[in-house]
């Protein structure tokens, strides 16, 4: 099913169980945030884990998806699902434009060029009137699902967010365990060989990039509806850095790594908000420790210890 191995199936079922049970025990808004970050991290992980390209500007797609969803919901009162899908579409289109420019390079140059392009998107968002500049787009209503189910209630909204997350997660997995995904793997392992076999590697990489950006846009759009706000923080390079941290901590290139990373990072931020001054320092320390001792991330290490691919 979806190409999960047996251990992954079990892990998936556990994750599903937690998703169903947790909102009754924990604060739903917190969980929704975790799910949005997790989806964003999964989208990012698609690029670094399966294509081997580190995108240091993924916030651009997340943020633009967030803005478009917020704007269409606030001013056009579209259905919630439509708003989220529009966010995803924005991510995809932007991914196509920027990806077309960036995909010709690889490694550190790819990272730097995505950073530069994301900075330009940030500048655009800063100056454009529709984004509301520093205020952002505020007081965004949650709207209605399918026209009649009101999403103002936190629990109702939670189920929608959970559904979106699971759909995205499974979509990514389906992509990876498909012939297309196999080609991506080949490109990551040995690009010249793949080219010699006749694959147009740049096209494959670009398609993967667009898919990754689309899902980042979906994550952004969902986040905007949950919190009713879309701001410049969503397109800022620190958000790009955060998703890298999240995925690194969870485990680059693993299936459940990004999800675990999202849980850890969001919990950490939540818990540390009271200690305000120490959040940045702690994030930095986590980064350093992860790179030095913990490169495979939580899930990676766990998988290594249990000799499983998670």
């Amino acid at each position, binding site marked *: 099913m979806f190409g999960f191995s047996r251990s992954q199936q079990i892990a998936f079922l556990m994750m599903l169980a937690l998703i169903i049970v947790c909102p009754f025990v924990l604060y739903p808004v917190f969980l929704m945030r975790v799910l949005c970050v997790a989806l964003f991290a999964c989208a990012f992980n698609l690029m670094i884990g399966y294509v081997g390209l580190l995108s240091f500007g993924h916030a651009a797609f997340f943020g633009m998806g967030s803005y478009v969803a917020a704007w269409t919901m606030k001013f056009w009162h579209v259905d919630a699902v439509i708003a989220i899908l529009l966010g995803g579409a924005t991510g995809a289109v932007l991914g196509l434009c920027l990806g077309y420019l960036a995909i010709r390079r690889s490694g550190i140059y790819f990272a730097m060029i995505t950073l530069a392009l994301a900075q330009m998107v940030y500048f655009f968002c800063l100056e454009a009137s529709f984004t509301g500049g520093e205020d952002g787009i505020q007081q965004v209503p949650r709207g209605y699902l399918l026209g009649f189910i009101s999403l103002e209630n936190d629990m109702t909204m939670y189920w929608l967010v959970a559904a979106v997350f699971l759909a995205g997660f499974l979509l990514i997995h389906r992509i990876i365990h498909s012939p297309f995904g196999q080609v991506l793997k080949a490109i990551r392992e040995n690009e010249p060989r793949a080219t010699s076999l006749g694959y147009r590697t740049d096209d494959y990489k670009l398609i993967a990039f667009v898919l990754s950006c689309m899902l980042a846009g979906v994550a952004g759009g969902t986040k905007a509806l949950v919190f009713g706000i879309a*701001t410049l923080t969503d397109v800022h390079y620190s958000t790009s850095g955060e998703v890298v941290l999240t995925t690194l901590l969870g485990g680059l290139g693993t299936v459940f790594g990004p999800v675990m990373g999202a*849980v850890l990072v969001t919990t950490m931020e939540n818990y540390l908000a009271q200690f305000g001054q120490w959040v940045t320092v702690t994030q930095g320390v986590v980064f350093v420790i992860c790179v030095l001792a913990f490169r495979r991330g939580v899930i990676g290490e766990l998988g290594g210890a249990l000799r499983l691919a998670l």
Partner: protein
Amino acid sequence: MTISRRALLGTATAAAAMPLVRPRAQGAPTIKIGVLNDMSGPYLNTGGPTSVICCKQALEDFGVSGKGLNIEVINADHQNKPDLAVSIARQWFDRDGVDMILDVPTSSVALAVQGVAREKNKIFLASGPATTALTGEQCSPNFVHWTYDTYMLAKSTGGAMVKAGGDTWYFLTADYAFGKQLQADTTAFVQHSGGKVLGASAYPFPGTTDFSSFLVQAQSSRAKVLGLANAGADTVNSIKQAREFGVNQSMKLAALLMFVTDVHALGLDVSQGLNLTESFYWDLNDRTRAFTNRVKPKTPNNWPNMIHAGCYSATLHYLKTIAEMGVAEAKKDGAATVARMKKMPVEDDCFGKTTIREDGRNLTTAYLFEVKQPSESKGAWDYFKLMATTPGDQAYRPLAEGHCPFVKAA
């Protein structure tokens, strides 16, 4: 075997997240105040921990324990991010039983928190932010804008400088909503007083540290006044560099938003001669001195500015209102509590007597200060001399011009 390890992972995750579940407090109802501001960024000294200290001072001065009230003060860092603030505010109101949020500098963040407070029918008393939108089209019955705003700054600093002969202006503006608003408000006053705006330079915010080229452009405009429509580190940098380029020899510098804490950071030899407006200064009168002496020992390196004083004053008035209304009543309905606050006269050591207007605007007095020369300063933090005073009822935008939706037409 494998399944049990997986189960362990799952349980561990759930357990790790457990601390978020807070059981409802049993026993006597507690009023919880949440101070939400910038604890790690450019507004750390302008607000930050000193705001929390002043809030707690209000508890002490009110004699909370003697009156049998249970009050708790918590705080968090919003890092100047509206979405983080919304997240924290929601959690505070929904899960942690917070009744009133205090401070919240950075106008965009304040607007976002205002929406949440209104949605949950709790209270938001803002001391930190500047934008007049908070009492304008976005006004809320759950909200009081306590200490100052862009209109008051523009009228006091702008208006006074024009009167003193500064009839041509050039603006150095932080290119975001707050800077642009400040520039717009000040321009209105300059033009109203018969002056002219010769030009403006909008620079990218945040991130600009070098203003040299904008300052050179300002100089070549030959305006008499350089209006600094920015705040925090930007203001400090632009002033430093203005001195370096000799701008202050041909132009007067008007720091449209500046606090005594910024002057402390700059040092007198750089900031002397600057004009700025605050609604509180520690050395203004006996009462302000008394307040500062009470607070000083707890924050010796960062004496209170108007934002800190505003936190004190707002908390004190809130406590007086709760004592009158009764804790249970006050907790139930935020809008009703704010309505009561507006009815009761406000008085304290920091601002003296003020009134809270219908749209949520607290009418504090605007004091125009000039920064002393180093030779004129006789002691620690002795930085200002008073140049002009605008009473509260004249300092702020008239009620009718605000278009606040729930204010009944006169």
